[in-house]
């Protein structure tokens, strides 16, 4: 696929924003307004800014982001459902010089892949995990995820998620923060420009944790699924803010000292 060549005159115009180089020109298959796309360009911008495109290896997972290996202009592979952290471990252990990151949905990471993510964090694997929490299984058509909200109607919880039958939503950022090998575990949201900008900062720190060899890093991002939530893209963003955020408070659940000090210094 093509990219549009945008002409401009540097003399009198300053380029403020352009599509990041770490994204391929391919048109994504994501639904209109799906913030998977937003997460993609944030990760790509961070890769560009850190200048690690030619060192990075993406481990895509099984979910709507299954084609991520087509969208990021880096070496990439497609893991089995839930096993991205194990595959990333295999790669990072033999390629310590590479920057290895996984991109996983909530069904992938929190449900079928719970053991792999837990142990990657416990071992302190030097990988960065981008975790897209959209409270649903998107790819397969909107079934309940371990992250679905109480009362949320999905195609596999048609009467709304009932805590007595299906339990309460799992908060992965908090759980993973508690594991000994975790250097960085935070939750951010993609529901408006301000939060998108904060999310990008967190993603950058998540990669820096790996570059500094501090251990396992995960950035949980509250993301939308207009299609399976049955809402317009903008309604979806409101739903994230009003419905998801109370259950999934944004925040820093584990930030290694080395990362804190660094951030402060930069702030000055």
């Amino acid at each position, binding site marked *: 696929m093509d990219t549009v060549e945008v002409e401009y005159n540097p003399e009198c115009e300053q380029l403020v924003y352009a599509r990041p180089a770490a994204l391929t020109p391919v048109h994504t*298959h*994501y*639904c*209109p307004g799906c913030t998977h796309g937003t997460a993609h360009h944030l990760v790509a911008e961070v890769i560009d800014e850190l200048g690690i495109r030619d060192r990075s290896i993406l481990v895509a997972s099984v979910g*709507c982001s*299954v084609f991520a290996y087509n969208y990021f202009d880096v070496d990439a592979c497609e893991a089995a459902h839930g096993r991205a952290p194990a595959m990333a471990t295999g790669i990072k252990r033999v390629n310590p010089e590479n920057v290895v990151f996984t991109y996983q949905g909530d069904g992938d990471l929190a449900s079928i892949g719970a053991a792999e993510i837990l142990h990657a964090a416990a071992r302190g694997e030097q990988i960065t995990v981008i975790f897209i929490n959209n409270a649903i299984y*998107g*790819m*397969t*058509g*909107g079934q309940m995820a371990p992250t679905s909200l109480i009362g949320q109607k999905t195609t596999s919880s048609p009467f709304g998620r009932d805590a007595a039958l299906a339990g309460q939503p799992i908060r992965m950022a908090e759980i993973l923060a508690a594991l000994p090998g975790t250097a960085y575990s935070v939750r951010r949201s993609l529901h408006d420009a301000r939060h998108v900008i904060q999310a990008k900062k967190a993603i950058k720190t998540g990669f820096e944790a790996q570059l500094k060899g501090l251990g396992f890093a995960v950035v949980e991002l509250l993301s939308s699924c207009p*299609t*399976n939530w049955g809402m317009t893209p903008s309604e979806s963003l409101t739903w994230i803010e009003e419905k998801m955020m109370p259950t999934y408070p944004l925040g820093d659940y584990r930030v290694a000292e080395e990362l804190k000090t660094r951030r402060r210094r930069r702030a000055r």
Partner: protein
Amino acid sequence: MESSIIIAGFGGQGVLFAGQLLAYAGMDIGRHVTWIPSYGPEMRGGTANCTVIISDEPIGAPIVSRPSIAVALNQPSFEKYEPLVQEGGLLVVNSSIVSLTSERDDIEVICIPATTIAERAGSTKMLNMAAVGALLARRPVLPLKAIDEALQAHLPESKAHLLESNLTVLRQGYEMAETATVA
């Protein structure tokens, strides 16, 4: 007698329901029918299509390489199926958004502004009914009445209030196609 029908268009155009409607109607009047969709990961803007077979005998293959009837509700569908329609077959085209025209002289091509008809009746979402109407006007694979009844019987509750307008669109599609000069 066996008719094989492919209906294709954008995800949101009610392609699958139009096919199911034909299958329901066929079943209700005692014909053998199969309906099979193209299926894939959730994606908007992808093109959806389904194959319906209506026959007097038990049906073997639920899919066909060359349908006797194709309904193209958008450009990509036209490009894909126009060449595949069997000789002597029918191609129904949604001229509201399909600008292309067929070069073939061995098939019947009927163009109707499905989107526009539906829009006028209240919602573009009903364009699939206009197409079905047009189809039946040129190929009486099923009596229009059967479709009417199927529609009443199987229109999802959420859409019940749209029954009348759907029936209207169906008829308008039918009539417009009856009178239309064939391309």
